[in-house]
């Protein structure tokens, strides 16, 4: 992972951009993200130990004080061919939250962010040979046609612009499958459900020593999703695809680029933000656009790593 590549100003550049010296943060943002997600996992796990009836994070609370996983809701509604009015307020809460803070769920709460962040930190790449043969390794990524963009987008798991359609196809596939076969299909392989399922299986093993083979299968599926299919979050996850559909309307808590500071506007071919972005967004190039950045998971990696400190988090 080459995050701070030496910046190469174009040869005939008039002025050399002066960079403010960055202090190394005491607690890096990736650690904060992992911590937040881990606390949520820990809360659910403690609820499982004390048998409070909290359940998983899929559905909790009631009415407008609750939360319902929108994908789980759609899967159940299509499978049962009914509207499930009891759950609709929770879905509305979820959608309002997505519109308010975008896909912050993906970056800060989903246990998947723990796995992807740690994976990118430790650079653990199992089955490298098999993955290379299947063309899944970095460097084999086909960017959109005509691009000579050499970004190393395999290592962080970012999708090319075309590959974003795959998660939409998975989303449509899982909904059609739920309708045909009559049960919420994605819930079986949902990494959030698998994480909590593993925790519950461990709690059960300790409490009542009833081991099940899911103690092995759930973690194995998580390894496949996050370590073998390295682009799970950006390319495959239908939950993320669904959140992207709603975060299109997100206008608050957005990352914006100060064009006066961004090196790109000063003629440097800087890709620092794109290289650290798990979704492969080059926010510098989009500085002048009024886009909502639907894929942005508000992980704040670019905010932290921008060599010119040009990226700011704007509440409104």
């Amino acid at each position, binding site marked *: 992972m080459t995050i701070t590549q030496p910046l190469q100003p174009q040869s005939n550049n008039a002025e050399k951009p002066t960079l403010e010296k960055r202090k190394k943060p005491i607690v890096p943002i990736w650690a904060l993200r992992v911590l937040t997600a881990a606390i949520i996992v820990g809360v659910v796990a403690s609820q499982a130990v004390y048998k409070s009836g909290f359940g998983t994070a899929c559905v909790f609370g009631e009415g407008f004080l609750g939360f319902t996983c929108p994908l789980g809701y759609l899967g159940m509604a299509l499978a049962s061919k009914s509207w499930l009015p*009891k759950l609709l307020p929770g879905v509305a809460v979820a959608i309002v939250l997505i519109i308010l803070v975008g896909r912050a769920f993906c970056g800060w709460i989903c246990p998947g962010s723990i796995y992807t962040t740690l994976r990118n930190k430790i650079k653990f790449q199992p089955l490298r040979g098999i993955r290379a043969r299947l063309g899944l390794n970095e460097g084999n990524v086909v960017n959109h046609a005509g691009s000579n963009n050499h970004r190393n987008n395999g290592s962080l798991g970012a999708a090319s612009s075309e*590959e974003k359609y795959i998660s939409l196809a998975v989303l449509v*596939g899982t909904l059609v499958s739920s309708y045909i076969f009559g049960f919420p299909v994605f819930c079986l392989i949902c990494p959030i459900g698998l994480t909590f399922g593993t925790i519950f299986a461990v709690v059960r093993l300790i409490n009542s020593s009833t081991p099940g083979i899911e103690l092995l299968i759930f973690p194995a599926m998580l390894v496949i999703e996050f370590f073998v299919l390295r682009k799970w979050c950006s390319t495959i996850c239908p939950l993320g695809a669904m959140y992207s559909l709603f975060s299109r309307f997100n206008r608050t808590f957005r990352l914006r680029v100060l064009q006066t500071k961004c090196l790109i506007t000063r003629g440097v071919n800087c890709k620092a933000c794109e290289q650290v972005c798990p979704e492969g967004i080059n926010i510098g190039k989009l500085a002048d656009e009024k886009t909502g950045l639907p894929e942005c998971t508000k992980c704040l990696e670019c905010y932290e790593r921008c060599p010119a400190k040009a990226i700011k988090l704007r509440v409104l």
Partner: protein
Amino acid sequence: MNNDATNKAGENSSEKPLSRKAFLGVAGGAAAMLGLGGIFKFIGKGDQMLRPPGALSEEHFRSLCIACGKCEDICPQKVIFPVHFEEDPGSVGTPRLDFGDNYCNLCMECTQICPTGALAPISQSEVRIGIAKVLETRCVVWLDRSCNRCVGQCPFRAIALDRQNRPYVKPELCVGCGICEKICALTAKKGFTKGIVVFPENSPELEQI
């Protein structure tokens, strides 16, 4: 700089047809989800499970249960257990009753807490978890010994004695609370296997009566 400009132009005009790899990904992703649903539906045998009180018909129950585990947590009798992967991969984590250590006291807490309505909030009198059946090859009374502990325990008087003083279940009275199975399991620990077991209503075991 020129490169960047062309890149940006390329990103904006997303009308281009998908590359072969991306197309394979799109088709493969959708097909994988359809296949997953089909496989788990095909190998599923959920209708052989004893579901908690208020459970809808197995097909309807499966469409609504998201395996959140709330019923398991709330159950004061601790008779609700999640289905293990090896029992039925398609309904892994969904609740199933086991009367080996305890019975259902029809407190109806699970039907109240179920967030999705997979367990309908019914009243006690409507509960029909399953039907108990005396296994004539295992019940010690049918094997010429004395016991009949289940008969006195049944709160619904659904277990009667035939002319040879052997217990049998009146299916129309049994709600499947499992108190007989629990008592029998306690006795059975002394070297016997359970002689009375609650089966789901549509179980083939019951049709043999």
